[in-house]
């Protein structure tokens, strides 16, 4: 084959042309334009937030596409082409240094996001996400609006739920500790309230609880459990001061339930995805022993002892 300059340049351009037609033009011409069940357009505030998301490279750490093999945040809804029909650019992402955000909307109330964007370590002690306090309150609010819209119609539903319970939580908090604790505990289903922590208090269990507390809770509830962690100025109602629970009907079951499910409407997140059952009992007992100074661990009714207990 005689490789003249023309053969090289024209030949390779021809090949490229054919391939562009095949792998870019044809997919473009046959693209899905129908919106998916959850699709809606973005508001202008949400679109502004999206620009801030782009400008600060959130896309290098966060994907927005859920796969059928995912478990974590957003795994309830596998991505469809119809979710993205107004995204320019599309922000699928190529790395998950942080969790997928396609269903982030309504996962937390706005105040959690404020504290988290100011400095992610405030709400998530082990986070390696950068602090975004430098953006200023205005831009963080826009960013939050965008984060709350991720998941589109699905997120609207969740955000509404957060807002409903936010009102209730604030109302209860402002009535004073007695009423607040009463409200908090009324939200726990009755069957849980009288359940004591089934495991005995042990040194090993407390040490595990301590570690979990440091890794997950301390930014809000503070190292001494008084609710004055660094996130405190940004969340309202503020993180619970555990000491007020003493003598107010607290139980291992309540602690377990609240830690597992979180308290929608408040910054208190759920931990059922991150902590297995025993870890929740451990950290609950750590809180009960160290901060409330009142634990029901290993008291009746207990049921049959777990097989591994000594």
């Amino acid at each position: 084959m005689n490789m003249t300059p023309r053969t090289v340049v024209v030949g390779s351009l021809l090949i490229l042309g054919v391939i562009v037609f095949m792998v870019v033009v044809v997919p473009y011409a046959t693209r899905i334009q129908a919106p998916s069940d959850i699709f809606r357009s973005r508001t202008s505030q949400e679109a502004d937030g999206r620009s801030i998301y782009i400008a600060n490279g959130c896309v290098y750490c966060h994907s927005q596409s859920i796969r059928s093999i995912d478990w974590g945040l957003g795994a309830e809804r596998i991505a469809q082409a119809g979710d993205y029909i107004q995204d320019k650019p599309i922000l699928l992402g190529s790395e998950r240094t942080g969790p997928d955000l396609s269903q982030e909307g309504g996962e937390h109330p706005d105040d959690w996001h404020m504290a988290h964007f100011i400095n992610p370590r405030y709400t998530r002690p082990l986070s390696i996400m950068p602090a975004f306090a430098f953006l200023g309150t205005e831009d963080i609010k826009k960013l939050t609006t965008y984060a709350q819209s991720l998941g589109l119609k699905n997120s609207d539903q969740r955000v509404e739920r957060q807002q409903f319970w936010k009102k209730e939580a604030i109302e209860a908090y402002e009535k004073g500790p007695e009423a607040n604790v009463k409200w908090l505990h009324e939200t726990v289903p009755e069957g849980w309230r009288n359940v004591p922590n089934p495991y005995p208090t042990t040194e090993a269990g407390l040490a595990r609880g301590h570690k979990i507390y440091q890794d997950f809770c301390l930014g809000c509830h503070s190292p001494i459990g008084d609710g004055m962690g660094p996130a405190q100025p940004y969340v309202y109602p503020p993180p619970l001061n555990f000491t007020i629970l003493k003598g107010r009907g607290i139980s291992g079951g309540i602690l377990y339930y609240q830690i597992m499910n979180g308290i929608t409407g408040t910054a208190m997140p759920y931990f059922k995805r991150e902590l297995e059952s025993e870890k929740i009992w451990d950290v609950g007992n750590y809180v009960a022993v160290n901060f409330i100074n009142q634990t029901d661990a290993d008291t009746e009714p207990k049921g049959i002892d777990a097989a591994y207990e000594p």
Partner: protein
Amino acid sequence: MTDPTPTMPTNYPTAKGFCLTSAFWMVVATSMGLLGATELIAPDLTENVGWLVFGRIRPIHVNLVLFGFVTPGLLAAAFYYVPKLLRTELYSEKLGVITVLAWNFTMVFVVVSLALGYTQGREYAEMIWPIDMLIVGGFSLVFVNLIMTVARRKEPILYVSVWYVCAGIVLTAVTFCLGNVIWRPNTGSLVGIPDAILLWFYGHNVFGLLLTPLSAGVAYYVIPRACRAPLYSHTLSLFGFWSLLVVYTHIGTHHLLQVPVPTWLKVISIVDSVAMVIPVMAFLINIWYTAKGKLGEIHADIGAKFVFTGTIMYFFVSIQGSMMALPDVQRVTHFNNWVVAHAHVGVLGFAGMIALGGIYYILPRITGRPLYSRFLADFQYWMILIGVIGFTVVLTIVGLIQGNAWLNGETVYRVLPEMHVYYITRASLGLMIFSSALMGLYNIVRSIFFNTGEIS
């Protein structure tokens, strides 16, 4: 900034300019990588310094590596070997020097705009429209200079290196325009899933139509020269060249196997990612058989040593890449540091090594004096080699930890502490690579400007 000193009345100012450009931006690019790696260990290190936030540092790092360090390094060699192979002078050294200057200014704009948050948010296509124009302009100038040199050649036959560099530049200019959607200056993107398809068509071709052909061009030049042996097979060159263009260009969708793109497109990309073995081995067999029994000669020339090592890295990255395109493998490897490891073997181990090899191979030939320090170049070689292999091991381990933990249902947050110690190792290796870049810059500057070695 290292001024490429257009007024120097010596030979090969364009090639020298690109050597300096590459060496300088390698320092900046690796310092950005090091900073990013450090931020993943100590995220509050740069707290409240907006322009140093990880999400801005990362694209600066990536784009500088691609367009500041590797591409100019490979071009430096091209501006030397194209006229040589064609037995003529470069069409215009003046145009070449202007290209070098424009290229450096463009890189400054890249850094400033990305640091200020002006980005289009698409990987490898982040730069805003005016900078896209500058980059396309840069590639066009290079193309004009090279093709005019070809037109004035005294040697009728075009050697394979010339095919690669000419095709690589012209195809990159075209795919760059397509990938950056330059007909939509505001967003620089299409809408929805087609945007992702186009982006990865382009993103993949940054490696397939820019780094790989330019690196292949250098290898095809340096290895036979250093071995003083004829190229093993002309047929393999032809076969490797055309099959690369056909196969590499349409597998970009293997970056999108887990998102809702048309299944037929995924199937094509998977099948032909495996078929990439053909162009890759055609090239490698040709190079390796040329060097068969001549490893002593290669070892003796530091430039050839870099280049030859680059070809070995090419083997590994490509075989790994073909594996990574298999859906069952990608269930574990996608979205995590496994891919980052692959990217570093490819861009630093393969294309970066060959770029440095090209520079060190031509430096004595364009200055007429030996390298300022062969020892420093050798030291740099080992630091980069250890750095890349270290990266690969460490990041592959982290990738496997992440991927398997996620598959097993663990949340991203829970896996973070497990990665910490590997991230520290990774940043240490990054420090090594950064130091080697400084060393390289010093060596290259001394070789060009203050070289007191015997004129040969």
